[in-house]
C-alpha cells in the first residue's frame, strides 16, 4: 500500500510541473515543425517559379523591413507569429482559381497552418487571462500594426493584379520568405 501511495505522490509531482506550463512553453517544437513543413509545401504546391513571371513588378515592402525593430520579448514574438500565420491563412483563402497549384498541398498547408493558429491563440488567450495584460503595451501594439500593414500591401497587390497567376507566384515566393522570417522568430521563442 505504501508503495502505491509513494508512486501516486511521485506521479502527482511529475504532472503538476507540466500542468502549469501546459499551453505555451512547448509551442516552439510545433512551430519549428510547421515552419519546415510549410516551406516544403509551398515548394511542392507550385514547383519552380515560372519564367514568364520574372518581369512582374513587385510593390510591397519585405517582411524583414517591416518588422526589423521587433523587440525580442517572448510574448511579442508569439503574438507576431500568431498574427503572421493568421494573415498567411487569409491570403491563401483568397481566389486561387487562376493558379494550377496542387490542391492537396494547399489543403495540407492550410490545415497545418490553422491548427497552429489555434494553438497559439489558446496560448496567448490563456496568458492574457492569467496575466491580465490587454493590448496596451507599446511593443505588442506596434508588432500587430506592422504585421497588418505588411499584409495589407499583399492583399492590395493581389487585388490590383486581379489574382493573376504571376501575382500568386510572387506571393508564394514572398510567403516562403515570410516563413524563413518566422523561423528566425521561432528561435527566440
Amino acid at each position, binding site marked *: 500500500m505504501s*508503495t502505491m501511495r*509513494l*508512486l501516486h505522490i*511521485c506521479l502527482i509531482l*511529475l504532472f503538476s510541473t*507540466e*500542468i502549469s506550463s*501546459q499551453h505555451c512553453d*512547448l509551442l516552439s*517544437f*510545433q512551430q519549428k*515543425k510547421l515552419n519546415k*513543413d510549410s516551406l516544403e509545401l509551398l515548394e511542392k504546391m507550385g514547383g519552380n517559379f515560372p519564367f514568364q513571371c520574372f518581369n512582374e513588378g513587385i510593390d510591397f515592402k519585405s517582411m524583414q523591413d517591416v518588422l526589423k525593430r521587433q523587440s525580442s520579448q517572448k510574448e511579442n514574438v508569439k*503574438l507576431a507569429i*500568431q*498574427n503572421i500565420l*493568421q*494573415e498567411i*491563412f*487569409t491570403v491563401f*483563402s483568397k481566389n486561387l482559381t487562376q493558379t494550377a497549384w496542387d490542391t492537396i498541398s494547399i*489543403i*495540407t498547408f*492550410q*490545415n*497545418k*497552418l*490553422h*491548427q497552429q493558429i*489555434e494553438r*497559439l*491563440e*489558446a496560448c*496567448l*488567450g490563456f496568458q*492574457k*487571462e492569467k496575466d491580465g495584460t*490587454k*493590448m*496596451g503595451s*507599446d511593443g505588442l*501594439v*506596434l508588432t*500587430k*500594426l506592422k504585421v*497588418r*500593414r505588411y*499584409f*495589407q500591401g499583399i492583399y492590395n497587390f493581389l487585388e490590383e493584379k486581379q489574382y493573376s497567376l504571376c501575382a500568386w507566384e510572387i506571393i508564394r515566393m514572398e510567403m516562403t520568405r515570410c516563413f524563413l522570417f518566422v523561423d528566425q522568430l521561432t528561435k527566440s521563442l
Partner: protein
Amino acid sequence: MAAAGFLRGDCALALVALSLLAALGSGRCAGQMNLMIPQNVQVHIINTNITLKWDWNSWNNFSVTFSPQYQWLEDYEEDGTNWTELPGCENITVTKCDISSAVTDYLCNYSVRVRAERGEEKSPWSEPFIFVPNIIAEIGPPGVQLESVNGMVKVNISPPEANSKEKMWTQHSFSYNAIIWKKSSNAEPKNRAIYPRDIIHDLEPETTYCLKVQARLNSEAKRGYFSPEQCINTTRASNGLPCPTNVTVHALNMKFLLSWDNHYNNSVSFNVQYLSGFYKQFNEDYSNKWYVVPGCENISHTQCDFSDIGASGNYYIRVNATNGYNRSCSSKEIKVDPCVVNEIGPPSVKVNSGPKLLRIQITCPGEENKSMSECYELSYRIQYWENSSKPEVSNDVAQKSFHTISNLMPSRAYCLKIQAFAQVYNKSGQFSNVICTETLSDHMSPLVVLTTFLIAVVVVLVLAVVIILAIYLSYKKIKYVFFPSCKPPSNIEPFGGQLFSNLYISTSEEPAEKCCIIENTIQEDANPTNFKNYSNSKQSSRDSGNYSNDDDTSGSKVSEETLELRKHLKHDWEHN
C-alpha cells in the same frame, strides 16, 4: 503611440483648471472668452463605424456649436499633418459626430480635438485625443441565422462586418462563442464555442431554445458585442433512418479506429467521411469538402480504420447510414487532433545487468508508424525498485533509447517498468511490463579482472608467436624458391651454371644440342659445285623438339665444320 494621449494627463488637468477659472470669471465680465472647453473627448469604434463624442454642460450655454478637428500622425510621430475640419461635423449642435469618412487608415495614429463656438466667441481647444483605430476598435455583433432540422438546430453566422466594404478585421480570424438557453426555464444558460456553420445537437425535441452569439479575437483577448437574442423551436426527429450515435475514436500508436453503435433493425451500410479542420473557420458553404475515408465506404460493420488520413492538422469525422435509397442524417461530428487523441502504447524493453548497474535498451512504441515521430519527441520515464520486502521506487528519465541506471547495489534483484512520454502534448504512454533482473556480483571482480587480463596476455602472446612463425616460414620458402643458395656440382657447371640460376625465368634462346648426320658415301672428286650441293642437302636435328629457331648462321657454321672434316678425311684416305 496611443498611450501618448494619456501621458499628457497632467497638462490636461492644468488646462481644465484654467478653463474653470475662465468660466468663473465670465459671470462678471460679459463678452469675454467665457465658453467652457468641451470635456472628455473620446472616440468609439465598432467595426469601421467611428464616432467622436464629448461632454458638454448645456445648462449655461445655449445656441453653442462645435467644430471638431483631426490630425493624421504619420508613422506614429508627434508632428503630424495640419489640423483639418472633419467633413460633416462643422458647426454641429450635438455632442457627437460620425467621423468614419475622415479616418480611413485604421493602422495609423490620429488625433482629434473639439472646441465650442457661439457667434464670434470660441472656447480654447480641448485636450487632443490620440488613437489608433484598429487598437481601440470593438467587434460588432455577428449576423446569425437559425434553422430547425430533424431535432437539431443549424446555425449560420456571418462575420461582424460582412456587408461593409472597408474592413477593420482580418478575414477568417474570428472565433465565435454562443450562449444557449431553454426558453421559459430556469436552467443555466450554456456557453459554447461555435463555428460559422454549425449544428447544435443534444437538444430536446419540440422545445424552444434561444441563443446569442459573439465574435472573439482570442489572441488579443477582444470580445465583441452579442448578436440580438433569437429563439427557435426544435422539431421532433424524423421517422426515417436515425443518425448513427455514440461515435467514438480510439487511437493507439497512431492507429486510429472509429466505432459507433448499430441500432438499426434492417441491414444498413455505413459511410464515414472526413473534413479538413480549417474549413470550419469559413463562413462559406463547405459541405462538398467532406470526403469519404478510404476503405470505409458502404461498410456493414460498425468500425473504421482511418489511420490513412495522416497527422497533417486537425480534421472532423462523421458517419451516416444508408438503407437502399434512404440515407440517415449524419452523426455528431468528432474533432480529431491526431497528436492529442492518440494514446502512446508501452515501449519494448531489454535489460542487461552489470555490477552495480543496469543497461536498458528501449524501443519506441509503434516504431513502424511514421506519424508517431510527426507528433512526438518521446522521452522515457523509468521506475525502478529493489525487489525486496520494502521497495522504494526511484525515477529516472531517458532521452534516448539506450540508458544506464548506475549506483545500484551489486548482486541484488531489481525490477523496472518504463513508459514513454511526450512533453509537448503532456502525454504519458502506457507502462511496459515489469522486468526483474539481478545485478552482477561485485566481490569477484578483482579476480575476474586479473583472469581476464591474464587470458588476454596469453592470447596476445600466442598470436604473436604464430604470426612471427608464419612470417619466418614464408620468408624461407620464398628465398628457397627464387634465390636458391645451393650451387650445382662442378661437373655440371660447364653445361651451363646459368641453367640453375634462372630455372624459372624464360630465356630468349633455349640452348640445344647440335647434331649432324654424316653421310657414308663420299664422292672422290672435290668439285666445288658438288660441295655446294652437299652442303645444301645436310640435315640438322635437335633433341629438344624445338624446330622454330632454325637459322642461317648456324647452318653455315655447320657446313664449314663439315667441310673441314671432309678435308681431313680426304687427306687420310689419300694417305692410305
